[in-house]
């Protein structure tokens, strides 16, 4: 009887300790998910900011100069004399502007980003920029959250496995006071204890 009660108390302590560790571990994974979310957000915003506010305006300015140059040259083809000269002069000005700006633009300087209808493919540029830091692309807060959820569920199930331990203590306590049913109560206590151990091991041991 004393052995049963002592065993139940020890098992309860083991379960409580282990569940506490698991609950803390789950919280750790969830907090890591928050840190990952912040990290991923910062990286995404920074890459988008760099492409659309640092690189893209210059690329668009180059596209504008190229389109205007082309438009002036097309207009010059149908013109003559002073007008043609003025139009060609303006086309040359736009070309010179584009040529001067292109070396400063990684987008315009790379033929992969040029679109056939004019302008540049900023989505591909953004994708290339993002690919420069693959470790940031791999950040996945949802995966971390899922791990936390699994560990948390394990902690809760382990505490649930402690319910038969409470029952064991009840049966053991009654066995001390009710002599007539002592054997039955003790047997039931042992069964409850066994089920608690089995449940705890089933939760702890991997499938």
């Amino acid at each position: 009887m004393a052995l049963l009660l002592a065993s139940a108390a020890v098992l309860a302590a083991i379960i409580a300790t282990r569940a506490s560790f698991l609950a803390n571990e789950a919280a750790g994974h969830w907090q890591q998910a928050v840190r990952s979310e912040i990290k991923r957000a910062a990286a995404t915003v920074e890459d988008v900011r760099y492409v659309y506010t640092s690189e893209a305006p210059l690329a668009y300015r180059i596209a504008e100069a190229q389109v205007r140059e082309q438009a002036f040259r097309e207009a010059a083809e149908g013109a003559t004399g002073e007008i043609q000269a003025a139009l060609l002069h303006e086309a040359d000005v736009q070309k010179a502007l584009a040529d001067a700006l292109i070396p400063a633009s990684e987008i315009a300087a790379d033929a992969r980003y040029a679109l056939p209808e004019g302008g540049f493919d900023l989505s591909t540029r953004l994708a290339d920029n993002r690919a420069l830091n693959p470790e940031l692309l791999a950040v996945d807060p949802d995966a971390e959250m899922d791990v936390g959820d699994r560990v948390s569920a394990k902690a809760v199930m382990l505490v649930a496995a402690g319910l038969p331990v409470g029952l064991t203590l009840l049966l053991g306590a009654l066995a001390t006071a009710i002599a007539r049913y002592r054997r039955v109560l003790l047997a039931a206590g042992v069964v409850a204890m066994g089920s608690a151990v089995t449940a705890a091991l089933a939760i702890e041991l991997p499938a």
Partner: protein
Amino acid sequence: MTRLDLDLEVVEETAKGTPFHRWTAALIGAIAVLASILALLQVNASQEDQRASLMATRLSTAISERVEASSLLFTFSGSTARDALALAIEATSRTLTTLQSGDPTGVEEARARPDATAAERLQEIAVVMGALPVAGGPVDSHTAEVLRADIPDLEQMVVQQNQQVDMTESWATRSSRAVLSLTLLALAGVLSGLAASFGAGRAGRAALTAAGAATLVAALAGVAALLP
């Protein structure tokens, strides 16, 4: 001799179990069962509380990320469209000014037409360059999702974030009730121990009654911990 007789009497009484001892044993056992149930409630509520709180924080971050990133693309798109429109307006203004003040050489009018043509092309280019990333395109799925976020998406996320905050409060309250219940149960355990120690006298009965009352209140607090 007398002392030995008394000890034997006590042992016999314990072995049979008096009503006082049975009640004490039953109460201690009930406290153990209730404690295991309350521990389960408390751990579950505590975990849900933490999870909801951190999910609310994550959603706040995700909302900020979407607002900021999509506004950068929107600003670029608007800016380029405005520049293309300004060039078209400049071409029109040049034509109108030429008509009003005269253009002996015809150069100004000739310059206006290509700018108008270029402005039309640039408006199309501005749309293409400021376009949202398409699904399955070169941009990774997360960045594409962030950039494609619109007002209804953000409103939906705000609703979810508020739900998580509400859940945090609800689970925190339930966790606190479970802790209160466990505290009362600990008190009941101490009183039960005192009752067992005092024996079936007046002090023992008083301690046992107080322990029973504390257990009952703990059970009620435990039931409250089940309520949202």
